[in-house]
């Protein structure tokens, strides 16, 4: 075997279990913290990445497109703002409240949505997204309507009136978000690598065959819908503590579309793709929008290209690039005369 660095690294990180996703996400957030030009950009990337993780569980792993993740992103945010300003809940408790209640609401919406397939499933999630958006105006005593809810205090961890850690805006908030992201990423990677994840992929690939094998399709779909809602709700909760207020923009269907865009752009079928999608989306939104206000045109062209030619998105491109490098390195380092078959088998399988 050749000892090229790319392969060695992949063997090191491919140790299985929690090691690889933990290392991958930890290195990524450290690089993000070092390279991102501002703490707020870096933090926003992590929040969007978390929201997209939820969407990716549904679309990438189970094959279900939800155009309604805004429900959980917005609801998680409103819950954070309401509990923080009215009851003085700290971020740690608000995260739990948002995750649990978003999972409950996702169970409610999911129970309806999973009764339908394909386009009708999408339409139900879309209809709930619009309903939730307009309900935010109906219940404006709680949501603040068009004005939103301001005065969300600094994010802190603790309980019973005591806080042991306050994440002030800036680097501290980013560190906190980074830890949360790594935790979430590792847990979700474990989830999709588990037997449950395998069933989800089976549903994506061939629903009737998975059902014929005895799996309760609806139970699995409902479960992943709830997990997805909770994850996106956590992102929404964090977002409100990050910007200090909750606004109706977070629960509009445009937010759901944005989350789908980030997910597909980054690459479905890989949780890490959601992180890459958020990096690219926020970077373009922050920098390119000043230089060229019509930057979303590029986004649109990229989406069309991904759908038609390259479903793997950015993650797929990166992966293809690494495979190419690996392939070239292995060709150079191993003498074809010594291992006539190895080179050929690499050619075929990669």
């Amino acid at each position: 075997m050749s000892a090229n660095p790319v392969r060695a690294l992949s063997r090191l990180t491919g140790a299985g279990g929690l090691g690889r996703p933990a290392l991958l996400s930890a290195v990524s957030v450290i690089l993000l913290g070092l390279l991102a030009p501002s703490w707020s950009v870096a933090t926003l990337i992590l929040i969007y990445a978390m929201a997209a993780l939820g969407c990716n569980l549904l679309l990438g792993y189970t094959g279900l497109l939800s155009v309604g993740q805004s429900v959980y992103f917005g609801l998680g945010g409103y819950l954070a703002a309401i509990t923080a300003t009215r009851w003085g809940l700290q971020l740690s408790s608000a995260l739990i409240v948002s995750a649990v209640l978003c999972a409950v609401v996702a169970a409610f919406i999911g129970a309806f949505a999973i009764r339908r397939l394909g386009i009708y499933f999408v339409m139900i999630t879309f209809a709930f997204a619009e309903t939730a958006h307009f309900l935010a105006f109906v219940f404006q005593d709680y949501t603040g309507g068009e004005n939103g809810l301001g005065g969300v205090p600094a994010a802190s961890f603790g309980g019973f009136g005591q806080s042991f850690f306050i994440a002030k805006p800036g680097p501290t908030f980013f560190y906190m978000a980074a830890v949360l992201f790594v935790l979430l990423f590792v847990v979700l990677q474990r989830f999709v690598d588990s037997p449950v994840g395998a069933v989800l992929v089976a549903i994506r690939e061939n629903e009737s065959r998975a059902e014929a094998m005895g799996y309760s399709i609806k139970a699995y779909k409902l479960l992943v819908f709830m997990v997805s809602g909770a994850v996106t709700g956590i992102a929404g909760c964090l977002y409100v503590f990050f910007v200090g207020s909750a606004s109706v923009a977070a629960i509009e269907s445009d937010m759901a579309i944005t989350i789908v865009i980030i997910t597909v752009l980054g690459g479905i079928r890989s949780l890490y793709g959601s992180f890459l999608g958020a990096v690219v989306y926020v970077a373009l939104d922050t920098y390119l929008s000043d230089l060229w206000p019509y930057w979303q045109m590029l986004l649109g062209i990229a989406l069309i290209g991904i759908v038609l030619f390259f479903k793997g998105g950015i993650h797929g491109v990166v992966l293809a690039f690494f495979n190419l490098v690996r392939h070239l390195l292995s060709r150079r380092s191993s003498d074809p005369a010594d291992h006539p078959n190895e080179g050929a088998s690499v050619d075929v399988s990669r």
Partner: protein
Amino acid sequence: MSSDLLLAQLINGVGTGLIYFLLAVGLTLIFGVRDFVNFAHGAFFVLGALLSWTLLEHGMSFWIALVVAPLVIGLAGFVMEPLLIRRFYNVDPAFQIVGTIGLTLVIQEVATMIWGPANRSTQPPKSLQGLVDLGVVSYPTYRLFIMGVAVVVGIALWWLIERSRFGASLRAGAEDRDMASCLGVNTGMLFAITFAIGVGLAALGGVLAAPTRGLNTGSSSEVLGIAFVIIVVGGMGSFLGAFVGALVIGVAQSLTITFAPAYGSVVIYIAMIVVLLVKSDGLFGKVTRVR
């Protein structure tokens, strides 16, 4: 609640519903023929409105804009179908949606380049300004005109689909593409024309809506939401369904606003959810469905 007010709201609802019909009928037509979910439909509606604004700014009459803008957008659709849209037909519906979201972004940004982000609204022609006394209620002449156009368009489309030779080919192509092809129907041309008619109708709706409300390049998602409510309630792909669905939703929204203003938009999306759960084919699914 006086019965006069109720009647007035009913007429209002029918008026809104007929505008909604123009908005949604193109979407249902395209879906009915190729099961293609066009999330960019709202963008074509807005393009029609903006194009008519430019034509009016250049001193052309409303009547010219009413004909030219939908024709131009329809032609654009005719060119776009073989170049791009056709490639989406065999893609999973979820990715059709993602792809047409991408198309929406492209159209929106091109429109913003040309027209800027500001709200554009046009004036109806002098002959259509003012009110008409309907006995119980005075109704804006222009809105009556829109209702008339919607009815005419509805009848013309019905004739086109159900009675013309083109319609026969269209229904055959929707039913069994390969067989229609074998029998000498140019299905590629058929689908290009269908797409052109669909987006042209969206543009017509935009031209007609521009005087009643301002439209900007960002309006497309709001418009798209309503279009989907209607075609889902009526039955996706059903022409008659789009007509009845639009009237039902228009009246339901109008009456809800009378009694509980805050719930006007909530109620139509709840209606959409209920229809999807009870009968996802909608009111007229399969019965008069194009395919």
